[in-house]
């Protein structure tokens, strides 16, 4: 007997909780071959193609493209070899329970025990049934039931006191706090000039005379546009006697969070709220490292950046201090033997953190090549989930912007992140008691105190400083 197969929202990486069908490449009734592209799924981090793992026919599509995000494990479509009746498909659909992970396969029945793999992002309280004989729109009633709104507190604004959806929305949201901008200067209408009220107001704000201005509004009236054409360009405003404030001139451009921004916001908020951060600061002389970089680039024929060297030094230091090379999962510390170092990269889509795997095992030229590959990918067609998954430690460098030092937010589940400042020439006391100049870099290590203690972090930084100041150790 051929099988009915459930196609569910795959789970790409530990952080993925939901995905959205960006586009279906197959439609109901289509037959596809193994390796064909079924659909594009968009997650918080990337958009990926999903390839068919077997030959089959599309019987049902349950999640249309471009709709709401579906949780991992949610049923997206039903496939079979085309042999089942619609009734059998319906029965399969009725019995289907999502299973953990990618494809759940059922031979006419649910294969896996019922388990909501990942709770839906918005767990709503159960609907409360509302019995009322007051007039109310169906959508308003649905919302009131979902939100558990007490209808007795709502005065219906519709005809005959009918409660509208907007009434319930207002009840749910509550009144806005009073925020006012106050009065504006009232510019009297003089008979000499024919201008709209706003035109007159703008002219007064800018100290412009409207006498003799030719109006392009109705019946030759001077309109807002006519006055704005006379207003000096904005860089000229602000000089002596210029108006300080212009009503409506500073309205924001509203940019809704895109998927990446949403996930970054969610994860950073969570990290900063949940993780007890503490910060350790150190600086190291970089002169030896800069010399070493020059000759190593020449010898190895690579173009390793200063940051690549810092990643390398961090990786070596992490292996020596495995207490810092950790992830935190619930009540467990996961300690890793090798350093998978995530590097913070500004991509056109926002901050991304591709991972250089087992960086401690790489020679500097290999590491430089890998970091270059990841950065180019991030700035080009985009990183895959594999590129960003995991990581035991992060390095974030703002030195190229001249930032002296800063405190980074830990990228969970990692236990620490290193913030790297600019390499700066600074005076230091020389052994002879005079002053000499050297290039110094300042580092701030943000540490998750649940998993890493102060001494462990400090020892790590000490080793990092040693490796940077005596970089021969990086080739040991």
């Amino acid at each position, binding site marked *: 007997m051929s099988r009915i197969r459930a196609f569910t929202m795959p789970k790409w990486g530990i952080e993925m909780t939901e995905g959205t069908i960006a586009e279906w490449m197959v439609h109901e009734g289509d037959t596809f071959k193994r390796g064909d592209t079924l659909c594009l799924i968009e997650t918080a981090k990337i958009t990926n193609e999903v390839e068919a793992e077997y030959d089959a026919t599309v019987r049902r599509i349950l999640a249309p493209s471009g709709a709401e995000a579906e949780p991992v494990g949610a049923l997206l479509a039903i496939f079979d070899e085309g042999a089942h009746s619609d009734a059998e498909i319906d029965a399969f659909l009725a019995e289907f329970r999502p299973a953990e992970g990618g494809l759940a396969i059922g031979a006419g029945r649910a294969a896996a025990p019922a388990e909501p793999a990942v709770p839906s992002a918005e767990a709503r309280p159960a609907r409360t049934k509302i019995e009322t004989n007051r007039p109310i729109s169906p959508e308003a009633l649905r919302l009131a039931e979902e939100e558990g709104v007490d209808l007795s507190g709502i005065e219906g604004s519709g005809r005959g006191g009918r409660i509208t959806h907007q009434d319930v929305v207002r009840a749910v949201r509550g009144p806005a706090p*009073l925020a006012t901008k106050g009065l*504006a200067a009232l510019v009297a*209408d003089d008979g000499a000039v024919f201008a*709209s*009220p*706003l035109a007159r107001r703008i002219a007064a704000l800018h100290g412009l005379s409207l006498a003799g201005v030719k109006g392009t509004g109705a*019946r030759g009236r001077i309109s807002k546009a006519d006055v704005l054409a006379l207003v000096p360009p904005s860089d000229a405003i602000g000089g002596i006697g210029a108006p300080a404030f212009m009503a409506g001139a500073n309205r924001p451009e509203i940019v809704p969070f895109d998927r990446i921004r949403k996930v970054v916001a969610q994860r950073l908020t969570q990290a900063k709220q949940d993780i007890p951060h503490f910060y350790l600061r150190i600086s190291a002389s970089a002169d030896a490292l800069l010399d070493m970089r020059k000759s190593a680039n020449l010898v190895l024929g690579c173009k390793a950046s200063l940051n690549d060297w810092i990643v390398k030094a961090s990786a070596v230091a992490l292996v020596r201090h495995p207490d810092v090379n950790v992830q935190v999962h619930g009540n467990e510390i996961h300690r890793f033997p090798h350093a998978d170092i995530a590097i913070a990269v500004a991509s056109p889509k926002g901050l991304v953190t591709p991972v250089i795997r087992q960086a401690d095992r790489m020679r500097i030229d290999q590491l430089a090549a890998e970091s270059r590959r990841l950065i180019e990918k991030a700035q080009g067609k985009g990183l895959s989930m594999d590129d960003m998954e995991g990581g035991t430690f992060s390095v974030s460098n703002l030195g190229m912007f001249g930032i002296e030092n800063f405190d980074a937010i830990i990228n969970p589940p990692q236990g620490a992140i290193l913030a790297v400042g600019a390499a700066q020439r600074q005076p230091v006391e020389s052994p002879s008691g005079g002053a000499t100049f050297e290039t110094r870099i300042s580092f701030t290590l943000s540490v998750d105190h649940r998993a890493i203690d102060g001494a462990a972090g400090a020892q790590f930084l000490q080793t990092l400083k040693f490796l940077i100041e005596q970089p021969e150790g990086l080739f040991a």
Partner: protein
Amino acid sequence: MAKLMYRDAIRNTIFQEMQRDPRVVVLGEDVVGGMGTAGGPEAIGGIWSTSTGLYDAFGPDRVIDTPISESAIVGAAGGLALAGKRPVAEIMFADFIGVCMDQLWNQIAKFRYMFGGKSICPAVIRMPCGAGYNAAAQHSQVIHQFVTNMPGLKVVMPSTPEDACGLLRQAIRDDDPVIFLEHKFLYGMSGEVSDDPEFCIPFGHARLARAGLDATIVAAGMMVGYAEAAADELARDGIGCDVIDLRTTSPLDEEAILDSVEVTGRLVVVDEAPPRCSLATDIAALVASKAFASLKAPTEMVTAPHTPVPFARELESAYLPSPAKIVAAVRQTLSYR
């Protein structure tokens, strides 16, 4: 400038225009005021005192006391206008417009269009209107909402003595028929009025009566004073309102309304008429379709309910918009999130 009452501003303007232009004639019920009484002409001076002194100055050929027939008054005004006069007709109560709807709606409003623009019909029909005098359902109505709906008519609703003067002069000199609506409650209002005999206010040019950045209140005629009172009360709490006095509802100064809502994002429309198919809904629709992106809250409408005007004093005051209702509406729109 001179301080005048609204009714005196109207009478003075008619007087000056009759002096200036011999084509201007006045007609209506009891416009002479006292004709046929023991006191003789001018003994009473017209029930609204808006035509006192005209008969003495200009005589029976130019100040015509008509029978109690609104259809005759409006019909005669239309005929006079077609024949080259500049009639200023008065309907004693706007409520009586119903009996002359053919003359007004199907004739005066259409002449210029039906004659291919070869004829004009420069008639002014003045109509005292509005509630608040405990005068019951048949003598208390406003009619701007349905005359505004009639293409071919211009509709004027002055809110101050000065506007009454400038708009009436414009109405008399205008080549199109003008419905000139005077709220009965405003007749006693005093204010500075320009004594320039050429002072005209162009139609379709709203007045900004108060300026603020938080909400836009749109009103016309009698409701402007209420809106100003509401704005002044709100200003004490730091809430600034633009109060737009439309002056004319046809043509409508869309630009003034939209410009203001684009700044404030919140609209309150005040209208003495019941809310269905009214000036209030017209402006709410205008803003919803042309400034939707600027709106931060649903438009609030402060209007009479959909009922006849009640007789009982308490009911009548509950029926009418008031400054307190406008204040509540502004606060309601500010509380939206």
